[in-house]
């Protein structure tokens, strides 16, 4: 029983990573009604920038703030330059654009910072948390930060005018435009926010998975699995889904023989498929109603 409890705790710790990423995935879905493939790569690039700033002697929290601001502006710039002209294009064109962005960012990060694995510092320290060997202060801090972001986002979308305008622009663009919302800028804002959240996720994840240009590939897919599990329409579901995926992964690894580290991605795939077959709307998502 103690083994079980420990594994669940360890699962919550890894789950925090997925929850972070899933939150970013659902966020951008809420804001722009699209899913950005390059999300993980944008987060990776932001993390590299914060690393570079620290190499230049900027203290951790200084570079943290600078990176979040940079990512926010970068997200807006990418949307204005590359994706605004594609707003009316078929989804296929957008997907091609996301893939192009993915390839460009990945390749440039490799070119500038090369593919060797780098250590990334943590602001929370890595001593055991509350005497437990399985969960470190960094992981506890990461969980705390994820929950904090979730709360802030909830308040932003629920209680501010801009949040309301963003929700309106995402769900019914035409009607939103008719009541005077600048939907085009709301989308840009959504990109900026998603990039900023992604950069926080990247900086939290980097101490655990180490910093390198391909660090986000697995995390993005796990984040997607978590978002599917929790329901793509629910930020709260995404966070819960992230923790559940982490716990599930750890328990499967412990109790089913023959499942090692190399099976991580197939587990995520199996999870996505099972959820889609059994409960397509996810645990907390509302089923999408189609109006004819």
């Amino acid at each position: 029983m103690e083994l079980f409890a420990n594994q669940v705790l360890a699962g919550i710790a890894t789950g925090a990573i997925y929850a972070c990423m899933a939150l970013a995935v659902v966020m951008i879905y809420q804001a722009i009604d699209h899913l950005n493939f390059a999300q993980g790569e944008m987060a990776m690039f932001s993390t590299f920038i914060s690393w570079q700033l620290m190499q230049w002697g900027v203290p951790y929290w200084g570079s943290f703030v600078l990176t979040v601001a940079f990512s926010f502006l970068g997200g807006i710039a990418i949307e204005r330059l590359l994706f605004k002209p594609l707003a009316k294009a078929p989804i296929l064109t957008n997907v091609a654009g996301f893939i192009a962005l993915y390839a460009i960012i990945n390749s440039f990060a490799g070119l500038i910072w090369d593919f060797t694995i780098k250590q990334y510092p943590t602001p929370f320290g890595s001593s055991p948390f509350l005497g437990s060997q399985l969960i470190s202060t960094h992981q506890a801090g990461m969980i705390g930060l994820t929950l904090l972001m979730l709360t802030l986002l909830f308040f932003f979308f629920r209680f501010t005018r801009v949040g309301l305008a963003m929700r309106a622009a995402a769900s019914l663009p035409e009607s939103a435009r008719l009541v005077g919302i600048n939907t085009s800028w709301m989308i840009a804002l959504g990109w900026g926010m998603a990039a900023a959240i992604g950069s926080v996720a990247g900086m939290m994840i980097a101490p655990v998975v180490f910093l390198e240009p391909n660090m986000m590939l697995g995390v993005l897919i796990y984040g997607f699995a978590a978002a599917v599990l929790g329901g793509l329409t629910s930020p709260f579901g995404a966070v819960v889904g992230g923790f559940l995926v982490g716990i599930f992964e750890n328990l499967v690894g412990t109790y089913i023989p023959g499942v090692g580290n190399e099976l991580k991605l197939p587990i995520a795939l199996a999870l996505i498929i099972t959820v889609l077959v059994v409960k397509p709307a996810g645990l907390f998502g509302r089923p999408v109603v189609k109006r004819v």
Partner: protein
Amino acid sequence: MSAVEEIVTEAPAVEAVPKRAMTLGYGTSLVILVLLLIVPLFVKNFIIFQLTQLLYLGLAILALNILTGGSGQFSLGQSAFYAVGAYTSAILMEYAGWNYAVTLPIAGIICFGFGFLFGQPALRLSGVYLALATFALATAMPQLLKLGFFEHWTGGVQGLVVTKPDAPFGLPMSQDMWLYYFTLAITIGIYIASVNLLKSRSGRAFMAIRDNEIAASAMGINVAMYKTLAFGVSAGITGVAGGLGAIAVQFVAPDSFTVTLAIQLFLGMVVGGVGWLPGSIIGAAFIIFVPNIAESVSKGLSGAVFGVLLFVVIFLVPHGARQVILAIPHLIKHGARLEMTDRARTLTSAAALTLALLGLILPAVVIMGFHVVWHTPVLSVAAIIYATRAALADNRIVAALASAVVLITTQPVPASLAAGYGVPVTIALVGIVPLIAIALNMRAHFVKKSALR
């Protein structure tokens, strides 16, 4: 986020391609067929091998084209089906000792089943989500193949070595040449079958679903059935392509079927023109030859070059190679006079000027400890833009001058490439000028037409 979606007024995921525009006329098809038949007789074995590669990758892109251009579903997981096909062929040949030709239909059938099954959960997703789910499939596949459980059959990380077949009946042909004709025969067979499929009742059902799912189901089309069927057919053809690939390369290993392959196939489809079946071959040529050129510009930069080219295609020629090829007759008839909008003129001027300046400044700049040395390509791109603009405006002197700059600055590129590529690459680089001209012209043509409407 409201949970209600406007479905009828929503634009379709893939732009509608009329059925007639999906293929080539008989005359053109015959000319291409004759070319494909006689070219191998005059070239070296390595080139024949590359032509074979062109055919089976073209086949894989064709399969994706049926899925996306035909039924409007995305897939970034084609590499998984490709891998299953390749492994099926390899295992049957090496362990069961079957004839290579017999393994291909088996690979096709197994992949059809696999694709059909994967199509079931895929029904729940559309658009970008489907793309991401298939992306997960593609990333998971190499790990599944490395699994200890299958290692006895798949050879694990080491992979399997396949023996190359000899020409049968004592035909006086090299192995490469025989394999080329064998692949060509299968490709032609599948191409004709695909054209017929898209013309048939099922093909019309695919296209109806692509254009408007609800209208299609209202007309009595079994949407779920046809969507999974499209997945199955696409996976089956990809499986055959994978089998052919395994025989041609003589080797299968998990790491040759990563998500990069899936992205390349997707890229090939976009470049060739979504929904235009002959474009698959052009797309395949793009994904085989462009990485070589990209690597020559800068090592490790091929991802970025791919990405930038993809953006260029999306913005300038959203219909891919189809648009360029359809523009040629128009160009011959009406000349290359471009009526550029003021904005386009300012943009291209600004871009060309910035690039030219960068080309002069960059050699002196050092970013984060390494010299930026690719100033020549930057200069040539600027020159290409200028040459194109001048050619379009019938300003022959400037066009000639700029073309000369293009020629001079692109010289180091063919020289630094592997032997045997120099001449075609120079021609290709110089050929970029008229190609861009055609693209811009066609774009302007479209813009003008839609403005009239």
